[in-house]
């Protein structure tokens, strides 16, 4: 018994010595690699394989844009994107995959960069339906633009936005030829303030121009939201007086959801 024990002790000791040497060399290597590891001049990026669908009947929705896509203001956190997805799940009874890439406060310049990213392009390529809300942060800048109300600067912002929008839609179409794009127009959250009619005019003009841009792309639908909020804006806005509330999102969703057709899956 004691002899066996002595042997065990010996084995454990020797094993520990070997392990100690191993860890010490790992330690040395870590320092050496950290301070003089030869960089290969960056690493090459491999293109990812296209997304695999579990079954052919699966519907993929990609939502791009700003806080409206994110669902800010909806206490359930769904936003119109979530509500539209729910509706589709109910109507078609098949698997729906949603990629919500909306970022609070995103402007068209940032979205234009986002759609150029590899992974975003890859997700777009797998999409059947693409939902976009963009432009609110460009135009309103948290309310600043319309408070100052300088037609010159608004014109400049608008021209830049139109450029960005064209580039965004071009990139999306490049990634995916078949998906239907639903591009939501702006509403005027400031319609009940003093210069409401002036700001509404700007928003109408903005929507008008964006619709024209989107018309140049195939299978691209411009969905107006201006009228939803026109008469009773305060009923449908969140406490920040800018984002829609739950009811507001519900109304937007009810407008978008019926437009998404099953037929496009058959093609």
């Amino acid at each position, binding site marked *: 018994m004691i002899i066996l024990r002595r042997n065990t*002790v010996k084995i454990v000791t020797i094993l520990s*010595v070997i392990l100690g040497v191993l860890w010490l060399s790992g330690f040395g290597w*870590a*320092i050496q690699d950290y301070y003089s590891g030869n960089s290969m001049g960056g*690493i090459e990026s491999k293109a990812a394989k296209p997304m695999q669908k579990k079954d052919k009947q699966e519907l993929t929705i990609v939502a791009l844009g700003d806080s409206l896509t994110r669902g800010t203001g909806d206490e359930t956190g769904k936003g119109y994107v979530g509500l539209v997805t729910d509706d589709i799940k109910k109507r078609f009874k098949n698997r729906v995959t949603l990629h919500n*890439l909306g970022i609070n406060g995103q402007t068209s310049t940032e979205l234009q960069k986002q759609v150029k990213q590899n992974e975003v392009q890859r997700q777009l390529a797998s999409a059947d339906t693409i939902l976009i809300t963009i432009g609110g942060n460009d135009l309103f800048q948290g309310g600043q633009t319309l408070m100052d109300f300088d037609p010159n600067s608004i014109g400049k912002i608008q021209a830049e936005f139109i450029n960005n929008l064209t580039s965004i839609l071009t990139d999306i179409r490049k990634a995916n030829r078949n998906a239907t794009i639903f591009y939501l127009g702006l509403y005027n959250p400031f319609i009940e303030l003093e210069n409401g009619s002036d700001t509404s005019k700007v928003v109408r003009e903005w929507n008008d121009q964006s619709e024209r841009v989107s018309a140049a792309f195939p299978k691209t639908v411009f969905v107006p939201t201006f009228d939803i909020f026109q008469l009773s804006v305060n009923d449908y806005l969140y406490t920040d007086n800018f984002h829609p509330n739950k009811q507001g999102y519900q109304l937007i969703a009810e407008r978008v959801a019926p437009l998404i057709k099953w037929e496009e899956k058959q093609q």
Partner: protein
Amino acid sequence: MANLIQNEMMKLLARKRIQVVGIIVAVLVLLFTYAQYKQVEEQREKLGTTDWRASLQQQIIDIQNRLGSSRMSDDWREQLQVSLKQQQYYLDHNINPTEPGAPSFVRMFVENSSDLFIPLLVMIIASDLVSSEHSLGSIKLLLTRPVKRWRILLSKYITLLLAISAIIAMVGVLAYLLSGIVFGYKGLNTPVITGFTVEGGNLDTSQVRLLAQWKFLLMDFGLVWFVAVVVGTLAFMLSVLIRSTAAGMGVTLAALISGAILSNMVSSWESAKYLFMVNLKLTNYLNGVAPPIEGMTLLSSMTVLFVWWAAALVVSFVVFTKQDVY
């Protein structure tokens, strides 16, 4: 000397300390494996896809949204921005930062336990190496032998180093074997990105390179081992200084836990970087995580740890050889 070490090793094994450590590790690994499994499961359900790129993309979007909120401390914002850029880099280069499999789990486990869990395990062994001789009264028997005192202490210290090496290996092996049951054993060769450096809240990717996961793991283990040796030596010193094992453990425990808390709040107290406790997360440097205090580097952290180690060793030997034993 070899006999002395053998003798110490036998005492260590007879006291079943290492076995207890093994059981603690096994239980924790099982817990973490389950937690990780649940997390993966939940994410899969939420996204409706098993594609890691889609879930990584979603994490990036989530971080971007969090960055948009105004109520956030600058430190936290900076940290988020760094990890955002890092994840984007992984995504752009089509490399999965959390390739499922036991090796990734081991990496996660070791990196997260390097500043508290593993030092605690080491402390269990180190704290009573000398003080227990006092409390058992066997120190007199030991010192009446015709062997120099420093040799006795050295044999104890070498035993500690061996025990630490064994514990680190045990953590690795147990984590690999147990998590592999759930995640599979593959992935030792998958590429991992290393060489990110953080400077002034910015992520520098110019030094980035790919490394096979097993190499990265060996480096991680090396660094964790070093940290464990330093903490072990400090606990060893306390074991010499304080004759009560419980008191020695208490002091080490307090230091370790205060370190874990301090790391989260010291960014404005710059001289805190000379405390050993905030320098324990060496593996963060390999991963390009921003250090708790601006200006800390792998070298500076290691130097701080080395100084503490050397001081503890000197104090231990001087005190032990001069100390009155009664």
